[in-house]
């Protein structure tokens, strides 16, 4: 299981209604169904991912996050999850608003561009970081809106979004304390539990 998903699981109540934006092959929704008995719906655009998620017995909607979510009624889900998709949408700020309109709570994870390795790469080589964790080159990356932990929290403050909890994943399990103490430097993945 991906580390960020294991962290999110703790914040989902048993039997909750969960909407997963950019659900991929449905790995996380399946986990939620099997461990938390949630009634889940996934939104995905990649056709192979959709077929894989349907094969897991999940309810999936083929829909483009960038085309809006106004077909979902206000407060129709308990939790709206977006794992590793915030940096790939056209308007991350609007998607955050929509998440908290549709759900009572939101859970967001994203790669932290402020990680020291990113900074070192950019500072020493003068080129956009490419690593095992961020494998794309600047011109073909789906990740068009990278941000740092500090950027995200500033946006939440501006929008009046409350951070209920946050958790940081570092390079390895032994770096958890480091990542949570100085997240903007040591978190590879930031995980936020938010509401309004």
């Amino acid at each position, binding site marked *: 299981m991906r580390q960020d998903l294991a962290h999110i699981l703790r914040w989902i109540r048993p039997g909750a209604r969960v909407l997963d934006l950019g659900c991929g092959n449905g790995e996380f929704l399946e986990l939620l169904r099997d461990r938390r008995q949630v009634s889940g719906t996934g939104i995905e655009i990649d056709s192979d991912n959709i077929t894989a998620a349907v094969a897991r*017995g999940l*309810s999936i909607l083929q829909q483009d996050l960038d085309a809006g979510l106004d077909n979902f009624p206000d407060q*129709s889900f308990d939790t709206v999850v977006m794992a590793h998709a915030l940096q790939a949408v056209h308007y991350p700020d609007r998607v955050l608003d929509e998440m908290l309109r549709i759900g009572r709570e939101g859970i967001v994870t994203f790669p932290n561009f402020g990680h020291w390795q990113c900074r070192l790469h950019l500072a020493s080589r003068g080129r956009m970081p490419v690593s095992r964790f961020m494998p794309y080159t600047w011109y073909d990356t789906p990740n068009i809106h990278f941000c740092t932990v500090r950027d995200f929290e500033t946006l939440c403050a501006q929008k009046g979004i409350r951070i209920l909890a946050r958790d940081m994943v570092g390079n390895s399990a032994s770096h958890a304390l480091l990542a949570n103490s100085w997240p903007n430097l040591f978190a590879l993945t930031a995980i936020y539990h938010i509401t309004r």
Partner: protein
Amino acid sequence: MTTTATAGSVGLVTAQTLHFDEPLALACGRSLDSYDIVYETYGELNADRSNAVLICHALSGHHHAAGRYRTDDRKPGWWEECIGPGKPIDTRRFFVVSLNNIGGCHGSTGPASINPGTGQPWGPDFPDLRVRDWVHSQARLADRLGIDCWAAVIGGSLGGMQAMRWALLYPDRLRHCVVIAAALRLSAQNLAFNEIARHAIEADPDFDNGHYLRNGKVPVRGLSLARMIGHITYLSDDAMADKFGRELRSGSLEQGATEAAEFQVQSYLRYQGSQFSESFDANTYILMTRALDYFDLAREYGDDPVAALENSRCRFLVVSFSTDWRFSPARSREIVDALIAARRDVTYVNIDASEGHDAFLMPIPRYLDVFSAYMQRVEADR
């Protein structure tokens, strides 16, 4: 009923007929006192009768959805791509029931049948039918076959409308509703195409106000023209370009050529039209297009599709095809959005396909894959 199954096919099949004597009250206010329904089944009904799937046919469809009657039949059933062992509707797992709707012309009671009151063919006096009448008659067929609850009711186009109506009229009698290339109701453009088709038939002198059978005639030209118009709307511009382009079947476009040029697409349309006019009843075509026109899932629910679909209890799969302009993806998304607002469990896929509305009959790999994946869930939900 299946005798031999070749790889991927249900093999040889035979049609069966059930007679119904209890009058069926119809939406038009009249009733049908007795009627026959012809149907086929594929696969085996399991011990707890939980694996039955109903196939609802489209405008020109019928009960022969899969397999062949004789080994030398030129063509198999109309949905051979999707029904059979190892196919999306896997006959090793499901007991599949496929019928010819009443009002049809392939064996079930319809306008070409004899009206017991007059001893003559019903013709244009056959009662007007609506989608709900078919659903009620299908429920009686289910009763006779001992099926309390379908694992799934499945249909494309007009068949998808029947499947949705099932979900509202008999919410406890289906666990899944599969709606392929359908709509909550027809658009004005769709109504217009149907009107042209009916007009073509009615303008044929051999139509004789629908009484053609009395005089041993068939409005071949009108029916053929109706089918030609319909056929164009079932294909996409790209599909027609791929299939025919501007290829000539005969003649020449050279200046001074004496023989008139005939494009491949002309010859294809003529062939389709004439084949159809030999095998389909004109009054049935009129009846079926009217049922399509009248269908409006939400009308009796204050024109609110959300309020309508709140009456359903099943799960839904909705499928559309990117180049379908007769029942476009936007129409399917209206169904999906209403289901989301009604907080119903729905899966939606829009399949990239060049084949237009006809794509729902075609072996498009992604379509078959996601349909198969969903049907595995239907089986698991039994």
